């Protein structure tokens, strides 16, 4: 049998769909890691990105930082963190957060910066406070680009969260790591396919959210 038909066979097995090693359970774990990572990254990157976008301060630093961090290999980071803090959730989540922060940060400050300065100037001249300018003008108008940052962060994390399995965590990466150890290539391929489909679905969901927010004000409502 070819790997492809064996993979189809793997998908059709009931054991693939049940228990702790079944796809539903692994999928939930995987989504959990992704959500946790993007959540933590957002707590760090969103306020910082809003500050940079609104004030224009620290911009050079942010550009240099995001460029440098993007160059770091996630697997190397994960190994290093695991050596520092031991096995468990901390090492992979930290490594993944470092992966998610740059696109998210860049998305947030670019979104805020993208707003026409004349609009911001007018809002200020009407007597909006800086916080009101940010929350009522810059964020709503830059939302599409900000969501773009979240979208690309989510996509990178969901694709890379497979590395958790490398140090014994769950998630869809298990199929890839376990399959490799036991030379079970159909399982590896099957696991990879699930990750790909999941990534595409999430990307599609973000794309819809983005298109709903962009051009909201240009739609004719008469």
């Amino acid at each position, binding site marked *: 049998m070819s790997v492809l038909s064996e993979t189809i066979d793997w998908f059709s097995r009931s054991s693939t769909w049940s228990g702790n090693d079944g796809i539903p359970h692994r999928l939930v774990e995987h989504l959990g890691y992704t959500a946790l990572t993007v959540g933590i990254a957002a707590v760090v990157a969103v306020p910082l990105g809003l500050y940079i976008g609104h004030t224009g301060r620290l911009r050079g630093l942010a550009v240099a930082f995001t460029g440098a961090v993007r160059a770091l290999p996630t697997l190397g980071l994960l190994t290093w963190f695991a050596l520092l803090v031991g096995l468990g959730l901390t090492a992979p989540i930290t490594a993944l957060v470092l992966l998610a922060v740059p696109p998210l940060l860049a998305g947030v400050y670019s979104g805020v910066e993208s707003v026409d300065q*004349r609009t911001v*100037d007018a809002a200020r001249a*009407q*007597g*909006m406070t800086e916080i009101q300018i940010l929350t009522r003008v810059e964020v709503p108008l830059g939302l599409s680009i900000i969501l773009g940052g979240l979208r690309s962060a989510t996509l990178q994390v969901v694709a890379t969260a497979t590395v958790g399995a490398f140090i014994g965590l769950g998630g869809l990466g298990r199929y890839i790591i376990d399959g490799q150890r036991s030379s079970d290539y159909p399982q590896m391929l099957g696991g990879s396919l699930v990750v790909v489909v999941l990534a595409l679905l999430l990307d599609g969901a973000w794309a819809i959210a983005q298109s709903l927010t962009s051009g909201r004000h*240009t739609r004719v409502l008469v």
Partner: protein
Amino acid sequence: MIEYRQISKTFDDGTQAVREFDLTIPSRTTTVFVGSSGCGKTTLLRMVNRMVDPSVGQVLIDDEDVATRNKVELRRSIGYVMQHAGLLPHRTVVDNVATVLRLNGVGKTQAHERALEVLTTVGLEESHARRYPSQLSGGQQQRVGVARGLAADPNILLMDEPFGAVDPIVREELQGELQRLQRELDKTIVFVTHDIDEAFALGDQIVILKKGGEIAQVGAPADILAAPADDFVRSFVGLDKATRTLRVEERDGRSLVVDGNGRATGVLA
């Protein structure tokens, strides 16, 4: 009354926009700052609502130094109309006009009622109110900008080249509307333009500026035309141009007004 006292402004990059500027703007009149780009007219305008703070000197509104006022509160108490309207593209026309009222804590229903009222005052219909700015023409957007400036009924209205981006026909129409509004509302209007005809059309007091905020001449349009201070003013207001040098010619018993090129421009009433 707005007073500029010994105002100088040097920007962070070292450009000196204004030097030792003194001026009094009487209440309930229209004062127009007119000059070429780089004369500091917008900078001077923006000092009234503290969008720009002077490096030296004071701006006083009714004898109170604006530097002692909270910026945000000050701006909410002064109307501001700018070029390209500066409307919030994600909010409807009525929400845009209600902005300052809402910031001042007026309830939504009441703010909307007032906004609709002001929209009517500036010649827009209720059907425009629920639209978004991008769905209006340039001239209509500019009217919305004026309505927003007037919504909170401020004593002072600052207008920064508000009609600079609309076509000449609409501009003239908007200038006419502003003259009508000023007769009805009696605000202290400070208006910035580079167009001397617009300045003459709207201003009670004209302030002609040279580079660096230096005053070339201050006065009513008639005073400036009758006695231009120097060659700069003479040339700036176009007294050396054929269109401003008019004479009367008798034709078929009527007195025709003819310009320097010999073209008839009107009749004496």
